[in-house]
């Protein structure tokens, strides 16, 4: 039967439009092929030219990022980036989004997001050692608002509220998948803002360790190599996932649920172990996972990188559903599937390894000379496409950009309009109890953050998680950060703040920040204001990464995060990787006995602050950009202080200002504090003002002179704030709270907001 003629019934829209292509792009395909494409071919172009696979709207902007450096072994372009750890080992890491699927089906969307990023890591030959996640949800207090949004109608139990349903589903999805595969989820961030109601963000980062001489690449080489498929069978789930995630949400988004994939973490665990064994036994020449755009993307990208042709036979693909068309097989995004290239003499060896893990080796075809991708089903040719036309010839757009008109008005903040708090202690307790700043234990206790016995327990719940590396003296530190509130006012500054904060976070844990990965989450790039945000953010990231010497080694772009024309805040998530000389240097935020010092030259400001948002319901002001010279001085001071054993705890001053930062340290250490804060023109600025370039450290009395000396050496500011100890949190001016109240504040916020109430 010729399945290509057996077209499913379709809506009035032409297929190219259904696939998210433009008329111009369709015409270009016809000219590249010299004929009209058939359905399967058009489907292949549709996914390969989607934003998700081709970065057609962002590639130009991203090309300016710094991607090289002394530590970088592999920059962008492979499954993941690789950084040198020591002479023998390397760290492989990347962040990716699974926003669109998570909006529709939070549990499976988040779970398969974890699965996808893990496969990127182990496809490089690296054993994953950690997961992190950056999550953004709507405002949990705006309950039920989703019902008024046509695009979201019916997507959740109408009686429950959308944010809680999403939070529960996403967290459980990440937990069930990561826990089962046995990769600890060690750090992350969870933020709430009304503009993520329709489009929650689920960005997942994975980190792995690979011997430097065994880094695997997804590059087909050796004509005559066999194309090996292993893992789960191919079904109809996830067809058009890549295309779907390159669209905005409108009414009828529910119809897209079939574009969400279903995860099987046990299969993932088996392909993880089998893949590492295949690479270790030198049984394969190239590996790529079948993620977005499935078989299509993996086969043509391998051929593209290897500058070869490829021929595959769809009759040999193991199928989960009956009567699947070539179009469906090529576009399926069924999870837990891997594609490898194996030279014929190694086939038996590879098959034996897969058999040990209860998997079959499926021989789909061959690496061919030339540059053609030929897809057959038995004797019938379903598609024949020049490989470069899918990858190198993919469209490259430069949409128009325009700075939003009302920006100056939003940047203005007149402090005279903001009344000073009468009771700063009450403000602090409210902030600590708010969804933005409350305890995250409800989330991270659902994640197995200890499996693998690599995680430094004391760094859990702190600025960055530290993981020791078995077989190395060194350790790695990781953190994910985004500063979307500041970015919503000034995208470029917001991006710089995110880079600076993530670098500061890993430095607080005792590591030198060495490289970063990023996830750009934005609205529809065809709107000039959105494209301007994207361009500004990438410019800011580029500048900050250059200044801090943390090149970008990979990442992902998620556009079209819009519902009914309302876009999310520009959200650039940075995943930072740091290296510690010794795992013993791992430093947490928990207060220890000693004196408290504020280091760095940063000045507090209420612009884009949490205090302004929570207490005065405003997002306004001009956020200050980091002073990169001072950021580097702070890093050096932290590293020298930690390595020299002077700094016993360190915490970045971030959301909620010094007051919240100190309260978090006190809460983690279960110990009181007595400090005098540096004077400011206003109490609220002194206590709750935010801004880059500030870190609080704990130093023992005997080491005071030494830390002062270090601050002089690295030319940054240092100021003694007070001391740790006692049963109260005392901050002058204005705060005196018993520790019992600090410990209770925010402890149950998430339970109250997100656990199902009553019997339902």
């Amino acid at each position, binding site marked *: 039967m010729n399945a290509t003629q057996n077209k499913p019934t379709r809506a009035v829209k032409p297929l190219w439009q259904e696939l998210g292509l433009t008329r111009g792009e369709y015409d270009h395909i016809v000219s590249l092929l010299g004929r009209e494409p058939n359905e399967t071919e058009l489907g292949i172009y549709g996914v390969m030219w989607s934003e998700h696979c081709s970065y057609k709207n962002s590639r130009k902007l991203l090309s300016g990022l710094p991607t090289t450096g002394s530590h970088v072994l592999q920059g962008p372009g492979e499954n993941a980036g690789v950084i040198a750890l020591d002479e023998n080992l390397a760290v492989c890491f990347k962040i990716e989004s699974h926003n669109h699927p998570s909006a529709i089906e939070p549990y499976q969307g988040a779970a398969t997001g974890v699965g996808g990023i893990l496969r990127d890591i182990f496809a490089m030959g690296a054993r994953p050692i950690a997961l992190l996640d950056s999550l953004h949800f709507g405002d949990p207090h705006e309950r039920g608002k989703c019902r008024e949004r046509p695009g979201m109608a019916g997507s959740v139990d109408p009686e429950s509220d959308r944010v809680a349903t999403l939070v529960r589903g996403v967290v459980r999805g990440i937990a069930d998948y990561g826990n089962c595969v046995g990769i600890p989820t060690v750090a992350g961030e969870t933020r709430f803002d009304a503009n993520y109601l329709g489009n929650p963000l689920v960005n997942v980062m994975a980190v792995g360790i690979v011997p430097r001489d065994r880094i695997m690449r997804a590059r087909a080489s050796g004509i005559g190599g066999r194309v090996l498929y292993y893992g789960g069978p191919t079904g109809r789930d996830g067809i058009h996932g890549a295309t779907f995630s390159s669209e905005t949400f409108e009414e009828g988004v529910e119809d897209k649920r079939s574009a969400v994939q279903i995860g099987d973490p*046990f299969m993932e*665990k088996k392909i993880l172990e089998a893949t590492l064994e295949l690479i270790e036994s030198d049984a394969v020449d190239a590996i790529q996972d079948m993620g977005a755009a499935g078989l299509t993307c993996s086969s043509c990208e391998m051929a593209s990188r290897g500058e070869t042709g490829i021929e595959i036979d769809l009759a040999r693909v193991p199928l989960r559903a009956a009567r699947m068309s070539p179009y469906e097989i090529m576009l399926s995004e069924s999870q837990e599937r891997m594609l490898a290239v194996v030279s014929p003499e190694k086939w038996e060896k590879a098959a034996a390894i897969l058999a040990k893990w*209860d998997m079959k080796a499926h021989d789909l075809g061959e690496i061919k000379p030339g540059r053609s991708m030929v897809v057959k089903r038995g004797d019938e040719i379903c598609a024949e496409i020049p490989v470069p036309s899918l990858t190198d010839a993919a469209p490259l757009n430069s949409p128009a950009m325009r700075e939003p008109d009302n920006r100056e008005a939003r940047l203005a903040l007149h402090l005279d309009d903001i009344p000073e708090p009468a009771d700063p202690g009450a403000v602090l307790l409210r902030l600590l109890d708010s969804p933005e700043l409350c305890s995250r*234990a409800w989330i991270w*206790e*659902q*994640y*197995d953050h*200890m499996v693998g*016995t690599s995680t430094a327990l004391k760094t859990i719940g702190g600025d960055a998680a530290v993981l020791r590396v078995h077989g190395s003296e060194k350790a790695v530190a990781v953190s994910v950060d985004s500063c979307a509130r500041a970015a919503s006012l000034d995208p470029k500054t917001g991006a710089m703040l995110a880079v600076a904060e993530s670098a500061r976070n890993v430095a607080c844990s005792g590591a030198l920040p060495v490289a970063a990965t990023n996830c750009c989450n934005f609205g529809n790039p065809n709107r000039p204001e959105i494209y301007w945000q994207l361009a500004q953010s990438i410019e800011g990231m580029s500048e900050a990464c250059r200044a801090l010497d943390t090149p970008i080694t990979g990442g992902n772009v998620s556009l079209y995060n819009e519902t009914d024309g309302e876009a999310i805040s520009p959200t650039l998530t940075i995943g930072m990787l740091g290296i510690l000389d010794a795992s013993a240097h791992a430093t947490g935020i928990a207060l220890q006995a000693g004196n408290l010092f504020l280091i760095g030259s940063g000045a507090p400001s209420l612009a884009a602050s949490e205090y302004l948002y929570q207490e005065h319901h405003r997002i306004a002001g001009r956020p200050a950009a980091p002073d990169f010279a001072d950021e580097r001085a702070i890093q050096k001071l932290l590293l020298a202080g930690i390595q020299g054993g002077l700094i016993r705890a360190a915490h970045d001053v971030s959301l909620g200002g010094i007051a919240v930062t100190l309260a978090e340290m006190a809460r983690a250490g279960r110990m009181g504090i007595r400090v005098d804060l540096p004077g400011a023109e206003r109490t609220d600025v002194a206590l709750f003002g935010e801004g880059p370039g500030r870190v609080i450290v704990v130093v023992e009395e005997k080491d005071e002179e030494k830390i002062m000396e270090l601050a002089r050496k690295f030319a940054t500011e240092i100021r003694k704030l007070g001391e740790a100890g006692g049963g109260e949190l005392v901050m002058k001016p204005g705060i005196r709270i018993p520790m019992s109240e600090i410990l209770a504040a925010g402890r149950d916020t998430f339970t109250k907001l997100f656990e199902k109430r009553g019997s339902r």
Partner: protein
Amino acid sequence: MRFAVVVFPGSNCDKDCVRALRDVMGQDVAEVWHTETSLSGFDAVVLPGGFSYGDYLRCGAIARFSKIMRAVKEHADRGGLVLGICNGFQILVEAHLLPGALIRNRSLKFMCRPVWLKRERRDSLFTARGEDFLRLPIAHGEGQYFIDAEGYRKLEDEGRIAYRYEAPPGIEQAENPNGSVGRIAGILNAKGNILGMMPHPERACEEFTGGVTHGRWIFESMIAHLTGERAARAGIAA
């Protein structure tokens, strides 16, 4: 001593157990694949945590049919030591080497955190060393130990409750993290040579990962017993 760490498809604490026993405790350790049929030559067997066979159907329900489980039973019948941790405990229960069942946590959520345990037996082969209160991490979604009233009485009467969730005086801790009957965290078989427990001693053998090193006490107890046994055998032989 020679330890076997059994590896099922889906085990994920196998390497952690190997590292704790080999690198921290200095023992001779081998990973044993689930298709093996013999455990001869091993003094003790560890069934590690994880999600054997994805925990599909029911935790441990598929793993109990593995070839290696017959060998585990034979090893136990010979008087060899068997330690089941987390998923290993679930497998031992499914294999009827230990009584009761492990069901979903009362909170219906996976739970990963260090908890305090109280040692109920000071004279068992697994608990002789160390102190009465231990702080070990738990990491499970299905760790609520259940047994009927009669079974529970029997466990108590026979002194087979090894550990309960309980904090030392003056330390605050949620009463019962997963809702287990009698706050049970670990139990012994009638002969006392099989211990199943939900908490993870291998994660608390070093301060870096566990904050404390109380997990060593369990391994030290096993090693001390095996050393004594070997010495006694040598004595008889001489």
